């Protein structure tokens, strides 16, 4: 019993780290462009599909870790330029536009990749004994990669010119533009970065979940929950919330079925929205 609890909590923790990557992309787009991105789950899904294609084309799994975020970045930048920019950050319109994007991405994947879900073989086979069962090594490795990517992203925000620009434009657009920051270009790059984060999460998660053109539909509400519970625009809060939520769901799954676990995290989310709409972690992290 104790072992199952630990095992499911571990699964939750690892999945939470991957979700954190995706949710971070959502939060960056939301915070900077004020876009409610309904297509974000599909950005993740495109990442899993890109990983699958690059594996079948090159025979090397690791290529996907480069290919997915890079192609994702370019698709994201193009989308921002063609679709998001013309609607000038009107939130209601952004929902319709990204809903359309979501349909287009799903349908394009269905045409090219097919409608049947596929499983991808993990590049690192083998298990190690953990909590009394043989635990897949790749899952532990995926958690490590996700952690490194999260750390890398925060370093990027703090220490690169583009990262500083992103924070500056989010903080105060007018002043940022007056200081000579090219806000329009920052928007394009931010949207690309958001897509790249989700796609990278997809590439990392591909061997753990199934590769399917509807794979983003379940991920999307979870990412929104992490962003809200963490506090809008609070990036470390988003990461903490994603890990916490997924960990809790894992714990609850050990005593009840997955649906109950999902419902309880939704109830938790409602409580947070009503009692602490500024997010759970405001005042703890900054």
């Amino acid at each position, binding site marked *: 019993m104790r072992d199952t609890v630990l095992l499911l909590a571990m699964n939750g923790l690892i999945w939470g780290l991957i979700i954190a990557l995706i949710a971070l992309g959502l939060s960056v787009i939301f915070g900077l462009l004020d876009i409610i991105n309904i297509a974000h789950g599909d950005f993740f899904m495109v990442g899993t599909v890109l990983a699958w294609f690059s594996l079948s084309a090159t025979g090397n799994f690791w290529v996907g870790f480069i290919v997915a975020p890079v192609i994702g970045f370019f698709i994201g930048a193009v989308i921002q330029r063609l679709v998001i920019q013309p609607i000038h950050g009107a939130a209601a319109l952004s929902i319709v536009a990204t809903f359309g994007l979501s349909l287009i991405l799903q349908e394009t994947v269905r045409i090219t990749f097919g409608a049947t879900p596929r499983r991808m073989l993990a590049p690192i086979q083998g298990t190690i004994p953990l909590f009394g069962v043989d635990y897949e090594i790749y899952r532990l490795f995926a958690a490590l990669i996700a952690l490194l990517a999260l750390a890398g992203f925060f370093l990027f925000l703090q220490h690169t010119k583009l990262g500083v620009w992103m924070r500056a434009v989010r903080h105060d657009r007018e002043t940022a533009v007056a200081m000579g920051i090219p806000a329009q270009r920052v928007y394009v790059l931010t949207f690309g970065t958001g897509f790249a984060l989700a796609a990278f999460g997809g590439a990392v998660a591909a061997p753990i979940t199934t590769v399917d053109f509807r794979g983003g539909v379940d991920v999307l509400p979870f990412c929104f929950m992490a962003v809200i519970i963490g506090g809008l625009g609070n990036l470390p809060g988003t990461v903490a919330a994603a890990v916490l939520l997924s960990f809790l769901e894992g714990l609850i799954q050990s005593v009840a079925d997955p*649906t109950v676990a999902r419902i309880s995290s939704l109830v938790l989310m409602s409580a947070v929205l009503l009692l602490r709409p500024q997010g759970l972690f405001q005042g703890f992290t900054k």
Partner: protein
Amino acid sequence: MTRRSIEIGVAVAFSAFLIAVPWLVPALTDTFWVSVITEILIWSLFAASANLLLGYVGLLSFGQALYFGFGMYGVALGIDNLGLSFWPAFGLGIISAMAMALVSGVFAVRLSWHYFAIITVVFSLIFYFLAVSMKPLTGGDDGVNFSLPPVFHFGRTVWSLTDPTFQYFFVLAVVSVCYFLMYRVIKSPLGKGFVAIRDNDLRASLIGLNVYVLRLIAFVMAGFLAGVSGALFAFFGRYASASYMFYQVSGEAVVWTIVGGAGTMFGPLVGTTLFIVIREIVSSHWEHHSLIVGLLAILAVIFAPKGIVGLWNGWMTRLDERDAAASAQLKLQAEP
């Protein structure tokens, strides 16, 4: 032609078309399209519920499918489990949708904008997962089927929705009544209060409007519209399914509304018609019709951010201005 005469002409032609549908449409194409038009009317009411909130109160609800689902299940379970006849089941569907809207509205309307959108989708997800997990009662994604009770019977004559023509007129009548009620509400002082909140909720509260209560009233009204459309759709399809409570269904209502024109009476109807007609025409020829729907949604927000009805209103206003300019010119010439 003036704006008024054009609008009256369109209204008359449109009403005549709606009444003639059961005879005109089979003569022109196929009886299949009568059932498509019936479906459009039902879904347009669902879109109207999203429009009442977004277009008139400024609340973006992403969870209207919840109340649609309650309307559906109220009817299906009322008939299948409780053995109700037609009207009590219809009533049960509407009442349960409104009750659910009241309960969730009490919490939801305290929040505004992004937070409101998120909490409505969260509420609808909670009940979606509940409905999926309570399979013995709700049938989960597969749903529950029921057999249709008659609508009226006078002596030996029985009217039932199994007759497609009667079904069409029944749906048309119910939907028209709902649109009329909505029109009356929008034109009433209550409706002005809604619009005041939409335009600026702080100012609305400063002139003494109770923003919370007005939003709650609007939310329950939207629940009513969604509940009626869900109940009608249950009668139309003779079944109810949890899959209609998923957030993507709510999203479609918002998309139809915005593409048709949020904050206009007939925007939702126009948007719904556009998307369902395209779906029906393209999906029979091409499997990947979602591509066209997606592209259309994006083009609509880029080129017609106020929706199709907004575009139309823009043309009408320009026509008005031209007429006004012409008559001013005439007046100038008449009195030298």
